[in-house]
Protein backbone atom coordinates (compact mmCIF):
# COMPACT_ATOMS: atom_id res chain seq x y z
CA UNK A 1 0.00 0.00 0.00
CA UNK A 2 1.95 3.00 -1.18
CA UNK A 3 1.73 6.32 0.58
CA UNK A 4 -0.03 7.82 -2.42
CA UNK A 5 -2.87 5.31 -2.26
CA UNK A 6 -3.19 5.72 1.49
CA UNK A 7 -3.46 9.50 1.27
CA UNK A 8 -5.85 9.24 -1.67
CA UNK A 9 -8.08 6.85 0.28
CA UNK A 10 -8.20 9.08 3.34
CA UNK A 11 -8.93 12.21 1.33
CA UNK A 12 -11.51 10.40 -0.79
CA UNK A 13 -13.25 9.03 2.28
CA UNK A 14 -13.47 12.47 3.88
CA UNK A 15 -14.72 13.98 0.63
CA UNK A 16 -17.48 11.37 0.35
CA UNK A 17 -18.47 11.74 4.01
CA UNK A 18 -18.61 15.51 3.63
CA UNK A 19 -20.75 15.10 0.50
CA UNK A 20 -23.11 12.92 2.53
CA UNK A 21 -23.14 15.70 5.10
CA UNK A 22 -24.26 18.15 2.43
CA UNK A 23 -27.28 16.03 1.66
CA UNK A 24 -28.15 15.14 5.25
CA UNK A 25 -27.66 18.39 7.13
CA UNK A 26 -30.83 20.22 8.20
CA UNK A 27 -29.33 23.66 8.34
CA UNK A 28 -28.24 24.88 4.89
CA UNK A 29 -25.24 26.66 6.38
CA UNK A 30 -23.98 23.33 7.64
CA UNK A 31 -24.54 21.92 4.15
CA UNK A 32 -22.45 24.70 2.68
CA UNK A 33 -19.66 24.07 5.19
CA UNK A 34 -19.69 20.35 4.43
CA UNK A 35 -19.44 21.21 0.76
CA UNK A 36 -16.41 23.41 1.47
CA UNK A 37 -14.74 20.46 3.21
CA UNK A 38 -15.57 18.20 0.28
CA UNK A 39 -14.18 20.64 -2.27
CA UNK A 40 -10.96 21.19 -0.38
CA UNK A 41 -10.39 17.45 -0.15
CA UNK A 42 -11.08 17.06 -3.85
CA UNK A 43 -8.56 19.84 -4.53
CA UNK A 44 -5.99 17.90 -2.49
CA UNK A 45 -6.79 14.85 -4.60
CA UNK A 46 -6.11 16.91 -7.71
CA UNK A 47 -2.65 17.60 -6.34
CA UNK A 48 -2.05 13.85 -6.00
CA UNK A 49 -3.20 13.48 -9.60
CA UNK A 50 -0.56 16.05 -10.60
CA UNK A 51 -3.00 18.81 -11.50
CA UNK A 52 -1.70 21.51 -9.18
CA UNK A 53 -3.03 24.42 -11.19
CA UNK A 54 -6.50 22.91 -11.22
CA UNK A 55 -6.30 22.35 -7.48
CA UNK A 56 -5.51 26.02 -6.85
CA UNK A 57 -8.18 27.07 -9.37
CA UNK A 58 -10.72 24.81 -7.65
CA UNK A 59 -10.07 26.41 -4.28
CA UNK A 60 -9.93 29.97 -5.57
CA UNK A 61 -13.01 29.71 -7.82
CA UNK A 62 -15.21 27.06 -6.26
CA UNK A 63 -14.68 27.48 -2.53
CA UNK A 64 -13.42 31.02 -2.57
CA UNK A 65 -16.04 32.53 -4.83
CA UNK A 66 -18.98 30.30 -5.70
CA UNK A 67 -19.56 28.92 -2.22
CA UNK A 68 -19.12 32.35 -0.66
CA UNK A 69 -21.87 33.54 -2.99
CA UNK A 70 -24.04 30.60 -1.95
CA UNK A 71 -23.42 31.37 1.72
CA UNK A 72 -24.40 35.01 1.15
CA UNK A 73 -27.69 33.95 -0.40
CA UNK A 74 -28.34 31.40 2.37
CA UNK A 75 -27.85 34.03 5.03
CA UNK A 76 -30.37 36.34 3.42
CA UNK A 77 -33.07 33.70 3.73
CA UNK A 78 -35.39 33.53 6.72
CA UNK A 79 -34.01 30.75 8.92
CA UNK A 80 -37.28 29.98 10.66
CA UNK A 81 -39.14 29.09 7.52
CA UNK A 82 -36.87 26.46 6.01
CA UNK A 83 -38.60 23.84 3.87
CA UNK A 84 -37.07 21.02 5.85
CA UNK A 85 -39.30 21.83 8.73
CA UNK A 86 -42.48 21.27 6.75
CA UNK A 87 -42.23 17.51 6.62
CA UNK A 88 -40.53 15.31 4.04
CA UNK A 89 -41.81 12.90 1.47
CA UNK A 90 -40.81 9.40 2.56
CA UNK A 91 -41.80 7.70 -0.68
CA UNK A 92 -39.62 10.09 -2.62
CA UNK A 93 -36.67 9.45 -0.33
CA UNK A 94 -37.00 5.69 -0.56
CA UNK A 95 -37.26 5.75 -4.35
CA UNK A 96 -34.27 8.07 -4.60
CA UNK A 97 -32.23 5.78 -2.37
CA UNK A 98 -33.11 2.73 -4.44
CA UNK A 99 -32.25 4.56 -7.65
CA UNK A 100 -28.97 5.73 -6.19
CA UNK A 101 -27.96 2.27 -5.08
CA UNK A 102 -28.91 0.79 -8.43
CA UNK A 103 -26.82 3.37 -10.25
CA UNK A 104 -23.91 2.78 -7.90
CA UNK A 105 -24.10 -0.94 -8.55
CA UNK A 106 -24.10 -0.45 -12.30
CA UNK A 107 -21.21 1.99 -12.27
CA UNK A 108 -19.11 -0.17 -9.99
CA UNK A 109 -19.78 -3.18 -12.20
CA UNK A 110 -18.65 -1.16 -15.19
CA UNK A 111 -15.53 0.12 -13.46
CA UNK A 112 -14.37 -3.15 -11.98
CA UNK A 113 -14.83 -5.32 -15.03
CA UNK A 114 -13.23 -3.14 -17.64
CA UNK A 115 -9.80 -1.82 -18.42
CA UNK A 116 -8.71 1.28 -20.22
CA UNK A 117 -7.42 0.91 -23.75
CA UNK A 118 -5.87 3.55 -25.88
CA UNK A 119 -2.55 5.20 -26.46
CA UNK A 120 -1.22 7.31 -23.64
CA UNK A 121 -0.69 10.94 -24.58
CA UNK A 122 2.54 12.92 -24.79
CA UNK A 123 2.49 14.64 -21.40
CA UNK A 124 4.24 12.15 -19.17
CA UNK A 125 5.59 13.54 -15.87
CA UNK A 126 9.05 13.93 -17.40
CA UNK A 127 7.66 15.93 -20.33
CA UNK A 128 5.68 18.14 -17.95
CA UNK A 129 8.75 18.75 -15.80
CA UNK A 130 10.77 19.55 -18.93
CA UNK A 131 8.60 22.55 -19.78
CA UNK A 132 8.72 23.80 -16.22
CA UNK A 133 5.72 22.30 -14.47
CA UNK A 134 2.01 21.74 -14.67
CA UNK A 135 1.12 25.41 -15.16
CA UNK A 136 3.48 25.88 -18.06
CA UNK A 137 2.36 22.63 -19.73
CA UNK A 138 -1.31 23.51 -19.28
CA UNK A 139 -0.60 26.96 -20.70
CA UNK A 140 0.99 25.43 -23.78
CA UNK A 141 -1.94 23.09 -24.38
CA UNK A 142 -4.61 25.71 -23.71
CA UNK A 143 -3.21 28.50 -25.80
CA UNK A 144 -2.26 26.37 -28.76
CA UNK A 145 -5.36 24.31 -29.37
CA UNK A 146 -8.07 25.84 -27.23
CA UNK A 147 -7.96 29.55 -27.88
CA UNK A 148 -11.49 29.64 -29.29
CA UNK A 149 -13.05 27.93 -26.24
CA UNK A 150 -11.25 30.44 -24.04
CA UNK A 151 -12.77 33.36 -25.93
CA UNK A 152 -16.19 31.69 -25.85
CA UNK A 153 -15.87 31.13 -22.09
CA UNK A 154 -15.00 34.78 -21.65
CA UNK A 155 -18.12 35.82 -23.54
CA UNK A 156 -20.14 33.33 -21.47
CA UNK A 157 -18.86 34.83 -18.22
CA UNK A 158 -19.68 38.31 -19.50
CA UNK A 159 -23.20 37.18 -20.35
CA UNK A 160 -23.56 35.62 -16.91
CA UNK A 161 -22.41 38.82 -15.22
CA UNK A 162 -24.85 40.94 -17.18
CA UNK A 163 -27.61 38.43 -16.48
CA UNK A 164 -26.88 38.56 -12.77
CA UNK A 165 -26.94 42.36 -12.80
CA UNK A 166 -30.33 42.35 -14.51
CA UNK A 167 -31.77 39.73 -12.16
CA UNK A 168 -30.56 41.46 -9.04
CA UNK A 169 -31.65 44.95 -9.97
CA UNK A 170 -34.17 46.42 -7.55
CA UNK A 171 -37.56 47.47 -8.95
CA UNK A 172 -37.47 51.02 -10.29
CA UNK A 173 -39.51 53.29 -8.07
CA UNK A 174 -42.41 54.98 -9.78
CA UNK A 175 -42.00 58.69 -10.21
CA UNK A 176 -44.19 60.29 -7.59
CA UNK A 177 -45.81 63.62 -8.07
CA UNK A 178 -43.51 66.05 -6.32
CA UNK A 179 -44.70 68.61 -3.85
CA UNK A 180 -44.45 72.05 -5.30
CA UNK A 181 -41.83 74.21 -3.73
CA UNK A 182 -42.13 77.83 -2.77
CA UNK A 183 -40.03 80.61 -4.09
CA UNK A 184 -37.69 81.37 -1.23
CA UNK A 185 -36.53 80.00 2.04
CA UNK A 186 -35.49 82.48 4.64
CA UNK A 187 -34.09 81.20 7.90
CA UNK A 188 -34.48 82.88 11.25
CA UNK A 189 -36.75 85.53 9.81
CA UNK A 190 -38.46 87.39 12.67
CA UNK A 191 -41.81 87.52 10.98
CA UNK A 192 -42.14 83.76 10.88
CA UNK A 193 -44.55 81.91 8.70
CA UNK A 194 -47.58 83.65 7.33
CA UNK A 195 -49.56 80.42 7.46
CA UNK A 196 -50.19 80.88 11.15
CA UNK A 197 -51.82 84.20 10.44
CA UNK A 198 -54.29 82.70 8.08
CA UNK A 199 -52.75 84.15 4.94
CA UNK A 200 -53.24 81.92 1.94
CA UNK A 201 -49.91 81.39 0.20
CA UNK A 202 -49.74 82.18 -3.51
CA UNK A 203 -47.68 79.59 -5.24
CA UNK A 204 -46.17 80.24 -8.63
CA UNK A 205 -48.27 78.89 -11.46
CA UNK A 206 -47.05 75.75 -13.18
CA UNK A 207 -47.48 74.88 -16.83
CA UNK A 208 -49.84 72.01 -17.66
CA UNK A 209 -48.28 68.66 -16.95
CA UNK A 210 -45.37 70.14 -15.09
CA UNK A 211 -44.73 68.53 -11.76
CA UNK A 212 -42.31 70.89 -10.18
CA UNK A 213 -40.60 74.21 -10.69
CA UNK A 214 -37.56 74.23 -12.89
CA UNK A 215 -34.31 74.56 -11.05
CA UNK A 216 -33.71 78.13 -12.19
CA UNK A 217 -37.07 79.39 -10.98
CA UNK A 218 -36.39 78.86 -7.32
CA UNK A 219 -34.16 81.09 -5.31
CA UNK A 220 -32.63 79.87 -2.09
CA UNK A 221 -31.75 82.45 0.51
CA UNK A 222 -29.88 81.81 3.73
CA UNK A 223 -30.46 84.65 6.12
CA UNK A 224 -28.18 84.95 9.15
CA UNK A 225 -30.33 87.49 10.84
CA UNK A 226 -33.75 88.86 10.32
CA UNK A 227 -32.42 92.15 9.03
CA UNK A 228 -30.92 90.67 5.89
CA UNK A 229 -32.77 90.25 2.66
CA UNK A 230 -35.84 92.08 3.79
CA UNK A 231 -36.69 92.77 0.19
CA UNK A 232 -37.15 89.09 -0.57
CA UNK A 233 -40.72 87.97 -0.12
CA UNK A 234 -41.39 85.72 2.86
CA UNK A 235 -43.22 82.51 2.27
CA UNK A 236 -46.67 83.45 1.20
CA UNK A 237 -46.17 87.19 1.35
CA UNK A 238 -47.19 89.29 -1.55
CA UNK A 239 -44.84 91.83 -3.06
CA UNK A 240 -44.98 95.18 -1.43
CA UNK A 241 -43.02 97.51 -3.56
Amino acid at each position, binding site marked *: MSAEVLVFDILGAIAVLAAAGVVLARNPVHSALALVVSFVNVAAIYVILRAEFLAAAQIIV*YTGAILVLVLFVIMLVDPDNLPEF*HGGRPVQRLLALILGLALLGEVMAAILTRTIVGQPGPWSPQAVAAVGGNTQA*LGRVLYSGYVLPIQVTAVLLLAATIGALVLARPDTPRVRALVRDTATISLAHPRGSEMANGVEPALPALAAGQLKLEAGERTLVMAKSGDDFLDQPVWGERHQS
Partner: protein
Amino acid sequence: MSELTATHFLTLSAALFIIGMLGVLIRRNVLVIFMCIELMFNAVNVSFIGFAWEQHSLVGQTFALFIIAVAAAEAVVGLGIIMALSRRLDTVDIDQVHELRE
Protein backbone atom coordinates in the same frame (compact mmCIF):
# COMPACT_ATOMS: atom_id res chain seq x y z
CA MET B 1 -4.40 -2.32 -4.74
CA SER B 2 -1.03 -0.93 -3.89
CA GLU B 3 -0.75 1.50 -6.77
CA LEU B 4 -3.07 4.32 -7.64
CA THR B 5 -5.16 3.12 -10.57
CA ALA B 6 -8.16 4.30 -12.51
CA THR B 7 -10.48 2.33 -10.24
CA HIS B 8 -9.70 4.61 -7.31
CA PHE B 9 -10.67 7.89 -8.85
CA LEU B 10 -13.55 6.43 -10.82
CA THR B 11 -15.06 5.05 -7.64
CA LEU B 12 -14.66 8.43 -5.96
CA SER B 13 -16.24 10.16 -8.93
CA ALA B 14 -19.16 7.74 -8.96
CA ALA B 15 -19.73 8.10 -5.22
CA LEU B 16 -19.70 11.90 -5.31
CA PHE B 17 -21.97 11.99 -8.36
CA ILE B 18 -24.52 9.63 -6.86
CA ILE B 19 -24.57 11.46 -3.55
CA GLY B 20 -25.15 14.70 -5.46
CA MET B 21 -27.94 13.07 -7.43
CA LEU B 22 -29.57 11.83 -4.23
CA GLY B 23 -29.38 15.32 -2.83
CA VAL B 24 -31.13 16.82 -5.83
CA LEU B 25 -33.88 14.21 -5.61
CA ILE B 26 -34.44 14.28 -1.87
CA ARG B 27 -33.95 17.84 -0.64
CA ARG B 28 -36.54 20.59 -0.92
CA ASN B 29 -34.40 23.62 -0.21
CA VAL B 30 -33.45 25.26 -3.50
CA LEU B 31 -30.03 26.26 -2.23
CA VAL B 32 -29.15 22.76 -1.07
CA ILE B 33 -30.25 21.41 -4.46
CA PHE B 34 -27.97 23.95 -6.08
CA MET B 35 -25.07 22.82 -3.91
CA CYS B 36 -25.70 19.19 -4.85
CA ILE B 37 -25.55 20.18 -8.52
CA GLU B 38 -22.12 21.72 -7.83
CA LEU B 39 -21.14 18.44 -6.20
CA MET B 40 -22.05 16.60 -9.39
CA PHE B 41 -19.93 19.02 -11.43
CA ASN B 42 -17.07 18.28 -9.09
CA ALA B 43 -17.48 14.54 -9.47
CA VAL B 44 -17.20 14.86 -13.24
CA ASN B 45 -14.11 17.02 -12.79
CA VAL B 46 -12.47 14.32 -10.69
CA SER B 47 -13.13 11.87 -13.49
CA PHE B 48 -11.64 14.14 -16.14
CA ILE B 49 -8.53 14.93 -14.15
CA GLY B 50 -8.07 11.31 -13.18
CA PHE B 51 -8.10 10.22 -16.79
CA ALA B 52 -5.74 13.05 -17.71
CA TRP B 53 -3.30 11.73 -15.12
CA GLU B 54 -3.69 8.17 -16.19
CA GLN B 55 -3.37 8.75 -19.91
CA HIS B 56 -0.57 11.33 -19.63
CA SER B 57 -2.64 13.82 -21.54
CA LEU B 58 -3.56 17.34 -20.50
CA VAL B 59 -6.84 17.48 -22.40
CA GLY B 60 -8.70 16.27 -19.32
CA GLN B 61 -7.32 19.13 -17.28
CA THR B 62 -8.33 21.63 -19.95
CA PHE B 63 -11.86 20.24 -19.90
CA ALA B 64 -11.94 20.43 -16.13
CA LEU B 65 -10.81 24.07 -16.27
CA PHE B 66 -13.61 24.94 -18.65
CA ILE B 67 -16.09 23.09 -16.47
CA ILE B 68 -15.00 25.21 -13.49
CA ALA B 69 -15.45 28.39 -15.52
CA VAL B 70 -18.88 27.34 -16.78
CA ALA B 71 -19.91 26.27 -13.28
CA ALA B 72 -18.98 29.74 -12.04
CA ALA B 73 -21.13 31.37 -14.70
CA GLU B 74 -23.99 29.00 -13.96
CA ALA B 75 -23.69 29.66 -10.24
CA VAL B 76 -23.97 33.39 -10.76
CA VAL B 77 -27.07 33.17 -12.92
CA GLY B 78 -28.63 30.38 -10.84
CA LEU B 79 -28.23 32.29 -7.60
CA GLY B 80 -29.67 35.39 -9.23
CA ILE B 81 -32.70 33.39 -10.25
CA ILE B 82 -33.00 31.88 -6.78
CA MET B 83 -32.87 35.31 -5.18
CA ALA B 84 -35.48 36.71 -7.55
CA LEU B 85 -37.66 33.64 -6.93
CA SER B 86 -37.36 33.86 -3.17
CA ARG B 87 -38.25 37.54 -3.27
CA ARG B 88 -41.35 36.78 -5.32
CA LEU B 89 -42.62 33.71 -3.49
CA ASP B 90 -41.08 34.48 -0.10
CA THR B 91 -39.89 30.89 0.25
CA VAL B 92 -37.03 28.65 -0.82
CA ASP B 93 -39.08 25.50 -0.97
CA ILE B 94 -38.86 24.01 -4.41
CA ASP B 95 -42.26 22.37 -4.04
CA GLN B 96 -43.82 25.82 -4.02
CA VAL B 97 -42.41 26.68 -7.42
CA HIS B 98 -45.17 25.47 -9.69
CA GLU B 99 -46.55 28.65 -11.22
CA LEU B 100 -45.92 27.53 -14.78
CA ARG B 101 -48.16 24.54 -14.28
CA GLU B 102 -51.90 25.03 -14.41
